[in-house]
């Protein structure tokens, strides 16, 4: 192991620069790939946009306006140029700029995935630590069962069961949407209903929003728990078996002190990666979760657009989600690089 992580700017900057360059490269590839997908959509985009009644002249004009009569590389260039201006095209379905649709649906997904991420962290980490400490005893088996069932259960099926039990049979929790039927949404601040309601002291809306968050968040976090629990468990196990821990124990330090100060902190390093990757799992889980609960977020919009073959929206969503996903990975990589100096010298 190298010497202490002294702040050596040239190496750090070098690492940063390389990582960012890589990101740009990857994203260019993502762009090209998405563009190619969009052009394999069957059907004439101009016809779809103009509608079935449009005269041939209108369709021809639209083809020209959309740049469809140009060669493929030129179209790609137009596409990239528009993208850099923030123009993701116009949705065929809603007739609005895709960027506007995405922006409108974003807060709902953000609220859902962030709440689920919090639950994954708050529940997953202690569960993993508990498993490691109580290895091969009941708590370990229990957490293994939770973890395995989380990745084996079909998300859509579990969602239907949850609605059936908690909404249809017990009537404890709502089965659809973000708010009760008669409740007005809170004054818009961030678009996160729970947050806005809290900020505006709108208690009826807060209660309604939290109640509606419960089941979707439960579903989404349950299926994303497994990787985190597993990683915490195996990291803790590895660390707990190491020499310096044995030394600390031999020195007579309290078990809890050992767990916190040494083991957990070091176990958190690979856990960070997994948490970053969890965001990807959460985004994907959101697709089915939002569909089942009619949660009007980006994933819900995505499924609607894909079903409708609204190809500008399909491209827009794919790009935006790739951007979010890879940005999260980038942040995690950078954070990892800061926290674990060994990585920087790779």
């Amino acid at each position, binding site marked *: 192991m190298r010497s202490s992580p002294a702040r050596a700017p040239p190496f750090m900057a070098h690492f940063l620069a390389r990582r960012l360059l890589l990101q740009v490269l*990857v994203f260019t590839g*993502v762009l090209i790939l998405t563009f190619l997908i969009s052009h394999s959509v069957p059907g004439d985009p101009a016809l779809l946009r103009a509608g079935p009644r449009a005269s041939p002249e209108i369709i021809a004009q639209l083809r020209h306006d959309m740049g469809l009569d140009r060669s493929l590389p030129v179209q790609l260039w137009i596409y990239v140029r528009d993208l850099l201006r923030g123009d993701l095209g116009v949705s065929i379905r809603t007739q609005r700029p895709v960027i506007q649709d995405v922006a409108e649906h974003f807060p709902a997904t953000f609220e859902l995935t962030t709440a689920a991420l919090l639950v994954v962290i708050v529940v997953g980490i202690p569960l993993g630590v508990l498993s490691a400490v109580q290895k091969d005893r009941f708590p370990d088996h229990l957490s293994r069962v939770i973890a395995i069932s989380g990745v084996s259960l079909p998300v859509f*099926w579990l969602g239907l069961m949850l609605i059936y039990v908690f909404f249809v049979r017990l009537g404890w929790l709502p089965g659809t949407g973000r708010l009760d039927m008669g409740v007005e949404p809170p004054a818009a601040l961030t678009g996160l209903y729970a947050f806005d309601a809290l900020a505006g002291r709108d208690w009826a809306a807060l209660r309604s929003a939290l109640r509606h968050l419960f089941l979707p968040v439960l579903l989404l976090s349950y299926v994303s728990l497994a990787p985190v629990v597993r990683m915490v468990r195996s990291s803790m196990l590895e660390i707990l078996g190491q020499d310096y821990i044995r030394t600390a124990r031999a020195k007579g330090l309290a078990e809890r002190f050992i767990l916190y100060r040494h083991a957990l902190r070091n176990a958190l390093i690979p856990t960070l990666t997994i948490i970053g990757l969890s965001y990807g799992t959460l985004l994907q889980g959101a697709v089915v979760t939002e569909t089942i609960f009619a949660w009007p977020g980006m994933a819900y919009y995505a499924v609607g657009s894909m079903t409708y073959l609204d190809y500008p929206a399909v491209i827009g969503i794919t790009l935006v989600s790739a951007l979010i996903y890879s940005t999260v990975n980038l942040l995690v990589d950078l954070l990892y690089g800061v926290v674990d100096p060994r990585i920087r010298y790779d």
Partner: protein
Amino acid sequence: MTEAPPEAPRALFRPAARGRLAVRWLLRRPLTLLGVGIVLAVVTVGLAAPLLAPYDPLALDIANRLQPLSRAHPLGTDHLGRDMLSRIIYGARISLGVGVTIAVMGALVGTVLGLLAGYLGGKIDETIMRICDMFLAFPALILAMALAASLGPSLRNTMLALVVIWWPWYTRIMRGQVLALREAEYVMAARSLGASTRRLMFLHLLPNAVPPIIVQATLDIGNAILIASSLSFLGFGAQPPAPEWGAMTSDGRTFLRDYWWYPTFPGLAIMGTVIGFNLMGDGLRDLLDPRLRRQVGG
């Protein structure tokens, strides 16, 4: 990064000894045993579907729609009177076929590319890895949906879309394995004896690098079944009247309250099958190399 060089795998030359060892090992791990049992059961059901299914899974019987569990129909009937048990049995064929195809094709493509990237290095390595990164930048389900939607809703297109998404993982694993094994003693020995590149890659590296691939592929059969059924549930995969488990759950969604068996059993079938593959895969991982746990990602 320092790490002890991997040992050449132990050679067990007597098949009988190997067999007995395997059984003893299995019996000590009830969960893995359960997994293997489930997988065997599902495979048997799938293969023997025509013999096991009491009815034709496509046979309509409108007069008997939405019948509850009975002797004639142990798992009830659906909204067109088709026997659920028969449909679930035939559904095993579809799901297994989908899962195995995706995992095997993804593993094949990914392994070859990973082998090339890891062994040949340099520009080839860079290119392949960048392409990998590109595909991995997308959340898998979104990309799968986009591809499946563009190609047209059908099970075949969904499988194609998922293979396209899946291969980068295998490339990464394989490349990592190759990089680690390249410097192993027996490889260097073979090289010094004058073995050609191709011989080195396929005869020496590949067999020893393959275990984590097998583990991952086993786990991925289950994952592929999950994602494929999710896509069918959303409307992108299997088309009517195919008895695919995800599509059946989706059809049954509106009937859940009064005819609970309709979406419940297909969902349980998916869950059971995936648990089986996951448990089996976990066990395989323990068997082939305990240290692999960290590499493959916990």
